[in-house]
């Protein structure tokens, strides 16, 4: 029997989508073994989030509401996760492979002297009932399956790799407050400020659709046609760039997709003027559908693309934008 604890993630009082993705994975593991799913949500003024976590599939929600948890801190949140593990005594602990999960889970895993599989795309139970994780390695050039043999078994989940369950408002989780003694004055590291980037509303790692440009964009100004296409596609769409474009100064590094940039996993990746260097493919090849537009018919990107167009991106991008607007207008 696998009892699973998931770490919900909220920013400014809103649940991140990864929270329900993690619950969906936990639900599968628990249901396969007759276990249960507990979710812990931490923050300041977050009690209201418990209902949505129950609707997403949690059996029990632990709420840790404390002023010291208003902004993220490694010390504060690690104390919360350690307390939730002590309370729920889970066999498995899951969180998102987000900047929070990446900071937090290894710290807690080290404290508990246990194993952790990062950035997993699939989780199942082995014949011994313990967690088996499948995850990309070598920057997405291969996968590995690893067996977790410690207690609890921990994993972080790649965003967008699992589908959340449809919220079921009739499901009601058992909600309990978990009291954790915290004093922000004793934290050795804490976030004092969050600065939202101006342009993008959705981060590359969370985007459902990515419009990406390479060196063939020629300059930073030309990225505006990609933003126009992203705007036409609408919510959940943002703009990325190849390393060549970033190194040429056309886009900031925060927009870089690839081995030394962000690893993305959207349902649609549109690559404009990106040749498809191995280090770029490493960052986007798990995209569900890939479109390549390039002047060079031999560009390696075409080998990975579901749909390829050989042509001039400066003609094609505006035409695609118009075609998208038309189809959206028709509904």
């Amino acid at each position: 029997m696998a009892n699973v604890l998931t770490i919900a993630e909220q920013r400014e009082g809103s649940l991140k989508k990864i929270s329900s993705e993690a619950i969906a994975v936990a639900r599968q593991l628990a249901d396969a073994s007759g276990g249960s799913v507990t979710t812990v949500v931490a923050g300041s003024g977050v009690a209201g989030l418990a209902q949505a976590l129950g609707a997403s599939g949690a059996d029990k929600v632990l709420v840790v509401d404390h002023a010291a948890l208003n902004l993220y801190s490694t010390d504060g949140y690690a104390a919360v996760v350690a307390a939730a593990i002590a309370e729920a005594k889970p066999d498995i602990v899951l969180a998102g492979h987000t900047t929070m999960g990446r900071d937090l889970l290894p710290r807690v895993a080290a404290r508990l002297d246990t194993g952790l599989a990062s950035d997993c795309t699939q989780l199942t139970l082995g014949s011994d009932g313990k967690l088996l994780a499948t995850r990309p390695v070598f920057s997405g050039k291969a996968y590995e399956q690893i067996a977790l043999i410690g207690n609890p078994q921990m994993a972080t989940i790649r965003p967008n790799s699992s589908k959340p369950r449809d919220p079921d408002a009739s499901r009601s989780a058992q909600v309990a407050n978990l009291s954790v003694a915290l004093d922000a004055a004793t934290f050795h590291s804490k976030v004092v400020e969050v600065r939202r980037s101006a342009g993008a509303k959705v981060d590359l790692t969370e985007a459902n659709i990515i419009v990406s440009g390479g060196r063939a964009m020629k300059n930073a100004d030309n990225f505006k046609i990609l933003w126009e296409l992203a705007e036409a596609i609408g919510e959940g769409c943002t703009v990325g760039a190849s390393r060549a474009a970033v190194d040429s100064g056309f886009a900031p590094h925060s927009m870089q997709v690839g081995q030394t940039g962000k690893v993305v996993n959207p349902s649609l990746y549109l690559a404009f003027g990106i040749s498809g260097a191995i280090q770029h493919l490493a960052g986007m090849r798990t995209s569900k559908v890939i479109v390549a537009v390039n002047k060079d018919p031999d560009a390696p990107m075409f080998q990975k693309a579901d749909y390829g167009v050989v042509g001039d991106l400066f003609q094609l991008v505006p035409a695609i934008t118009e075609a998208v607007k038309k189809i959206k207008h028709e509904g």
Partner: protein
Amino acid sequence: MKIAVIIKQTPDTETVIKINDSASDIVPAGVKFVMSPYCEFAVEEGLRTKEKNAGSEVVVVSLGPDRALETIRTALAMGCDRAIHLKDPAFEGGDAQATAKALAAALKTVGPDIVFAGKQAIDGDQAQVGPRVAELLGASQATIVTALEIAADGKTARATRRIEGGDEIVELTLPAVITCEKGLNEPRYASLPGIMKAKKKEVKELKPADLGLEGQVGAAGAKAKRVKLMPLPERKPGRRIEGETPEAIATELVRLLREEAKVI
């Protein structure tokens, strides 16, 4: 200040991965091994921190086989002062916890005020060793850092970490572990005199027994074990879309994305 940098030798980013017959690892033949790119940012930040704090020392620590010495020499050639090489068959096959235990024990012999590491190594991509080492040392941490200022008294620091859709500003007390993201700095190249000097710098080899860690590191200490390494599923061949005009191509592409792929 006492400054430490953790580095790892990994295959170069352009490497084409071949899986061995037992599916346990890659075939190393023909692979060019280099310093993992994020470790270069860590070395550079260590050197810059030394340059701002007279009388500091930068110690490189790396766990790896014989060939890792080449990467350690690169760090020394860039300007690091000395190195510790955790080299023993018993260190091999560990997970992040076993590796972090070995590194933390070696770091305790140095007693660093600040430790720099890459945000992740580009082979295992676990992104765990930095924060695990911080926990095992009882140090504070800031991960995925793109800017860092250490206070003049060397007791606190302010780090910028890149998060989804923005940045977090983190205040932390030293000793601290900082994991480095691209954008933090531009790593320097090793100079020819630097390469010459590096040959004479100390590289101390340590084994598990030297750290009192027999049976706790490498495969013996691992809490996660690789079952197998698998190639990526091949994508099925794609389709070329052709048309008389850009408008015709665009209309057909968008139709396919909606009706066939169902993604728009």
